[in-house]
């Protein structure tokens, strides 16, 4: 619970990435990690220790909804899908991120 600016930014980013990962289809936790790795072409290594706390936090906020279902291999896993509330949150975060990224880029250009 100690305030730590660095992890807050990382956490915020991780939340957004998770929401994006499950935006197209429901995924279980392991698949979320794989998807993010694939999408980032292996450049983004999701810290696995932070993944599950983040999933549960997002579920607690009502942005994700977790349901137990069978995987293609026949094992039961918890699949997270985006709720309508989560969808709105994702849109907000993405636009905020883009704005921030553009601003930072602008500053870097001009400096």
């Amino acid at each position, binding site marked *: 619970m100690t305030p730590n600016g660095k992890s807050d930014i990382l956490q915020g980013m991780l939340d957004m990435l998770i929401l994006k990962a499950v935006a197209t289809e429901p995924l*279980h936790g392991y698949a979320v990690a794989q998807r993010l790795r694939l999408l980032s072409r292996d450049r983004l290594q999701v810290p696995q*220790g932070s993944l599950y706390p983040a999933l549960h936090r997002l579920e607690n906020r009502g942005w994700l909804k977790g349901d137990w279902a069978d995987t293609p291999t026949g094992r039961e896993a*918890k699949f997270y899908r985006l709720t309508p509330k989560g969808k709105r949150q994702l849109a907000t975060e993405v636009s905020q991120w883009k704005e921030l990224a553009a601003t930072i880029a602008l500053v870097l250009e001009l400096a």
Partner: protein
Amino acid sequence: MSWIGRLLRRRAMERDLDKELRFHLDEEARRHTAVGVDPREAERRARIALGGLEQTKESTRDARGTRWLEDIGSDVRYAVRALRRTPVFTASAILTLAVGIGANTAVFNLTDAVLLRTLPVLRPNELVAVKRVGLGDDNYRFSHPSYERLRHAMPDTTAMAAMSSTLRMWAMIGDAPEATIGQLVSGEWFGVLGVRPAMGRLIDPSDNRDLGGHPVAVLSHAYWDRRFGRSPSVIGSTLRVNGVALTVIGVAAPRFFGMKPGDDVDLYAPLVMQHELRYQSNASVDNADGSKPWIPQIGIAWLTVIARAAPDQRAQVESRLERDFRGALTDEVASREEQVRTFRMREHVRLEPAGRGLSDLRKDLGAPMLTLMASVGLVLLIACANLASLLLARTTARSQELSIRASLGARSGRLIRQGFTESLTLALIGGVCSLLVARWGSVALLHLLTSNTNTPSQALQLTFEPRLLAFAFGLSLLVGVLFGVAPALRIGHADLHAVFKTGGRVVGARHGNRFPLGRVLVAGQIALSLALVVLATLFARTLRNFTAIDPGFDQHQVAEARIDVRAAGYAAERLPALNDRLIEAVRAVPRVRSVSVSVTGVATGHMRTSSVEIPGQVHGPEWDGTVQENTVTPAFFETVGLSLMRGRGFTASDATGAPPVAVVSQSMARYFFGTEEAIGRRFSTGDSAIEVIGVVRDARVNTIKDAPPRMAYYPLAQVPSEYPNGIEVRFDGPAVTVIPLIRAAIASVDRALPVREIVTLDELLGRGLREQSLVSQLAGLFSILALLLASIGLYGVMAYTVAQRSTELGVRLALGAKPAEVRGVVLRDTLRIVVIGLVAGAVILIPSLGAVESLVYGVSPRDPATLAAAAALLLLVGTLAGFVPAWRASRIDPARALRAE
């Protein structure tokens, strides 16, 4: 899922989390095995990637957001486990709490019933009583015509009602008269109170029209239950009360006990039945004939008037009533001379909130109850301090466990909360057990308080209603926090790393801190104990001072038989013969030396007052011409041991036809005749002039607490229509053997004559001191408890100190200190705590002792001798408590103490 759902589904959630992470690990491991990694190595890599299964779980739990609630559950389980490991500590703590909280709850119940609780009626905050003020003592008595006049001044004439006092009435159940408490009420009364019938109907205005024409009765629910087993057939049946056949028309709602908490009414009858039911009490009679029906007479004030007025309309209603009261007053005094009229017209009416009832108990018990409440609260505080000390010691003993938990990452806030959970768990368990103690304690308390009434009042009994439960629960929480705060602070401040360095022996013993928490607690206990011991001493001295008062007559070896001739239905003409037969029959009892009959009896609380005028005397407005009266047979003064100072007593020749005579008390003689000779002077109470023939000693004939009233005694033979209420009997030998014989003698005259009781005057006078003796006994009990708890606390702290300082003391002994010196060191240390506590206690206590001014008699609340004695007692107790640790300190084996270093 709601937070409560999650809390309840905690186990399922844990299982799901486990399953989810297991799946992840398996998938991750599969990725490794797919490229040929050994399965065990794959599993290891998967766990490393996840960052440790347990850590991940823990942070995932944190992310759920209901963590604090889940923790409470586990804290409670942890606390219960910890408490079960130390059953002796736990049991003694719970017992202490149960007794402490239970005693407080029981006393609170009584305080609540007497002082705070509102009546079980409709919107009690609107109820008011009409009070007469402006003339000497305020009172609530109105005549029926004045009541009717006031009622018609009300905006709504059904919003005012009148009632008589409650009175013992005799109901014939089978062929024996049985005492019941009756009350006469106006037709509007039940309506104003908003009480509904449980069965049948209640008295309404149609039952109060014709004088003597409505022989009906309404039973209270409790009486119906107690006496008639809730039989529905009681409606319509006939009940003979004081010789009148009353038809029972209904039963009032359950839990309605009347207007006076502590004075439960059994049956209600209409006001118009006053004459038939021979109700004659608690009235002021002025220029009127008490033997005729009271309803039409404006000179007889006997009704308490209540009304319903919303708080915001009260002032307006009051001024309307005041206007009509002027009219009523003008009528009341119309026949009097000018001077009296002007004086009497100074009276006013006031509305007074009556939503809590009109209890005499409130007046009598208000201050004692609050004192008891405070004392029992102090005892609980002292007990809390002891528990805090015990928990502190426990915390110290557990410091190693705590530091391990801290080093494993438990935050100190978390540990403090856990400490609190433990004390709160203890307090709540104690609180639940305290309900049993409260139940038992309130029965005992009620028994002490109302030893002479046959049925304990419904209003005062302990019921586990929400308010009481809330009190017990709230008190438990408060207590839990109080005694939990010190140990919790200790947990928070403990230098946990020191534990590892020293093997866990010295945590908490922070050197250099001369007055640590444990000592502060004990000093506080000493301060509180001082307060309790001082109070108990003051009350004990008050009680002794009261019992040492000479009542002015010889109260020993005298019995009073309290009879109710009026209720037995005797016609006035038969009274002289009855009186003679009663005296004759009782005098024939062996060991009886002297017998008299009187109208009010002695120390019965049934006094009668009259206004006396001396022909030819003119008085200023401050003049108070009232005297108390009793009408007696000639042997009265001899029987009760009231000595004649001047003149003569009554003889058989002071009878009807002879000149009216009176014997007066010294104070009456002094007040009316000053230094002049009273014998031979005359005074009047209405029409006839009465000659003073004798002066008797001033005596406390009502209660031992009140100063002797101005008394006038008249011979019963000259007022033959007076109904006697008491037979006084002077006897030899033990009362227990004589009283049954007196009872038999009275029964031999008339079996149906109601005898309320036959008691010695010693007992009757003692009843007046019931509150004093209750307060004194309880305060004594509480102070003993306080001393016990404080000495245990002191002993504990000193024993702990000696254990801590054993090395130092051992070294001193090794260096040649004498055992006596070491004992002195420890004893001085003990006494320092006691003295600090005493000084702090005195500083707080002395200014606040003024609050008990009204409760003490014959001793100043700040009596220096009492304070000094209490302080000395505490010093003595402190020395005793410190002696064992001191002795043990002097027996420390230096060699062993040094080896332990």
